[in-house]
């Protein structure tokens, strides 16, 4: 089976696996004052420090994943105006109360002019959320510029960096945001843990309350194995080079001349390609690829069950019909060149079959 769906979830990196398994057998509740609890606590504190240092963050709150981190970030906006891009992940869109959507250009990048207008249109500042890397197209958003603009007008700024870590340089400090989401299983760590990185004393409206863990911002017993796995994955992900991925991305795009590549004209990460096969629905493509042992996706993992047209693509101006023909290919740390070649082969085969059918 060829796995080209890294944006849905990444295989667990060996270093993350080792770190996790080493701690899995340790008994104790990290909140307990006895030695066993303290040992786990220090492992967690070290992991926290490592992750924070590597992205120049100020404070880190562990959550159960990216979705929850987004929910926590957005819950801060209660009663305030909310501006989110039209291409955000569902976990941001659904967590926003009455959001105003920031339109994107045809290339899938946030429309800066429109944003400026929107920011000025509100009588009071609120919360703005703009993802750093879009999960479907891989387009890199101008978060730093937007944060600068928005903060000058008194807005709080959040960025969902789930798909960014390891693919673009990531510095919380440089971005100038107040809140930043990280997801472990998007960078080779275990599923079940994520983080909301914040400015030092940034006030939050906790979603999950109770025993006071995580600065009183997120209650619940912490899982040391998941957290150390996460930290190990982050460390490795930051070492990844995108050179190889970039080559493969180019190879795919050059080989598949018939394909429509969405977001091609703007800055994208190297490991994602959103490809349209003219006239062939994503459902058919998915089935065909699957039969040939290739795992890809159409739209985000969670929404692919409903097979709706991707809201990201429709926000970019595609018609429903066009959007329905798009698939997402995403590569990662375990991908081989042969797999890319096979993918290209199969894509061409599927398209050829379709053309034959059309002709007859």
């Amino acid at each position, binding site marked *: 089976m060829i796995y080209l769906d890294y944006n849905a979830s990444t295989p*667990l990196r060996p270093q993350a696996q080792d770190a996790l398994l080493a701690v899995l057998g340790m008994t104790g509740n990290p909140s307990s004052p006895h030695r066993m609890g303290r040992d786990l606590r220090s492992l967690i504190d070290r992991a926290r420090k490592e992750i924070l240092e590597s992205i120049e963050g100020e404070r880190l709150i562990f959550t159960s994943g990216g979705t929850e981190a987004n929910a926590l970030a957005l819950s801060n906006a209660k009663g305030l105006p909310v501006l989110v891009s039209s291409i955000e992940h569902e976990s941001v869109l659904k967590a926003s109360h009455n959001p105003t959507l920031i339109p994107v250009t045809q290339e899938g990048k946030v429309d800066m002019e429109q944003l400026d207008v929107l920011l000025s249109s509100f009588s009071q500042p609120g919360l703005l959320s703009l993802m750093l890397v879009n999960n479907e197209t891989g387009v890199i958003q101008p978060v730093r510029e937007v944060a600068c603009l928005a903060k000058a007008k008194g807005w709080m700024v959040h960025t969902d960096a789930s798909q960014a870590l390891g693919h673009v340089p990531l510095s919380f400090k440089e971005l100038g945001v107040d809140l930043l989401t990280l997801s472990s299983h998007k960078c080779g760590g275990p599923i079940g843990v994520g983080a909301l990185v914040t400015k030092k004393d940034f006030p939050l409206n906790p979603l999950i309350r109770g025993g006071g863990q995580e600065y009183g911002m997120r209650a619940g017993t912490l899982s040391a194995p998941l957290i150390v796995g996460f930290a190990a994955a982050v460390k490795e992900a930051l070492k990844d080079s995108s050179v190889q991925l970039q080559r493969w991305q180019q190879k795919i795009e050059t080989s598949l001349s018939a394909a429509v590549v969405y977001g091609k004209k703007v800055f994208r990460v190297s490991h994602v390609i959103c490809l349209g096969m003219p006239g062939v629905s994503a459902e058919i493509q998915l089935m065909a690829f699957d039969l040939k042992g290739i795992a890809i996706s159409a739209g985000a*993992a969670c929404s692919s069950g409903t097979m709706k047209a991707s809201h990201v693509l429709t926000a970019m101006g595609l018609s429903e019909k066009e959007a329905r023909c798009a698939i997402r290919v995403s590569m990662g740390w375990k991908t081989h060149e042969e797999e890319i070649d096979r993918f290209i082969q199969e894509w061409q085969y599927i398209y050829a079959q379709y053309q034959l059918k059309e002709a007859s």
Partner: protein
Amino acid sequence: MERPIYLDYQATTPCDPRVVEVMLPYFTQEFGNPHSRSHVYGWRAEEVIENAREKTAKLINADPKALIFTSGATESNNLAIKGVAYFYKEKKDHIITCVTEHKCVLNSCRQLEQEGFKVTYLPVQPNGIIDLQHLKEAITEKTTLVSIMAVNNEIGVIQPLAEIGKICREKGVLFHTDAAQAVGKIPMDVEAMNIDLLSISGHKLYGPKGIGALYVRRKPRVRLVPLISGGGQERGMRSGTLSPSLCVGLGEACAIAHEEMVTESTRLKVLRDHLYQVIKTELEEVYLNGDLEQRIPGNLNLSFAYVEGEGLMMGIKDLAVSSGSACTSASLEPSYVLRALGVEEEMAHTSLRLGLGRFTTIEEVDIAAQKIIKEVNRLRDMSPLWEMTREGINLKSIKWAAH
């Protein structure tokens, strides 16, 4: 250095090796986002998760379709209480809970109060059990939800769930129970007990941390406003990618508990009663907090008069236990659970919680008993309070020069 003897099973349980074994492949080989519909990685992940869901549901006699996975009981409790409160708030805005609930329940209720809801905190009797009459009287037409924990984490006391469920059913009120300390230890049956919502914690029943579940009744249907929205997973009640390994771990832990509950609780009761006997025989002025009979088999919560809890814990550092003393709590207040039983502050400071579990041996129990007895005696020799009571002085008559 040798590991301490672990007697803190209520704080957390070690992952059973059999659970680790079934989880391993999902860390080491298999991967895939279970919500990916388009390939076998996703389907396989989904399949194992559904299997785990069935095993978890079976332990509480629930319909698997009514069970959603969460990140743990803390989240389940927050979701159950706030989720239900928000959904029905137009017509009903009153919640009933109990003073001895876990902080996540109490703080969720506090948050609701700040938002305009009314909350009744039912007191408990000195044995830790709620008075059913009080409950009946507290319910009004505006009551949405009653939330009473099945087993208390500090004193191990079991609430009369079937009776509470009956009352709630009769009065048309939803019944939620935080069953984190109960599931896998005592029989739980959402049908027989008329439970509408039930919280489960993975790491309290020899499963992994980072996973829990919430049972949300489907017939008649209970609705709630999700805390975490997004991709619509778990029937829209809890979005976010599910971890196949964690779910599998929880499922296996539940399956093992289902199999072994009876034999395990019998064994633990014998060990626990033995521990209590030895301590009581060799030490004076030891008081049990909470009902002895209506209690899970592995828990013991004792106050050792005139000896402070944290000091005692320091002396028995080869034992991992916990204390109701202020010094060991993050808030620097003595255990509110003990205070709710009517235990006086000074006695709350002297308490120790001993939690026995699956891997506790009789040797460990005997060693623990001796260490506790030795240390209590040593500290009593150092205690001015012990000295004064030996001299016949009534401590209550003294005017303490407190800060």
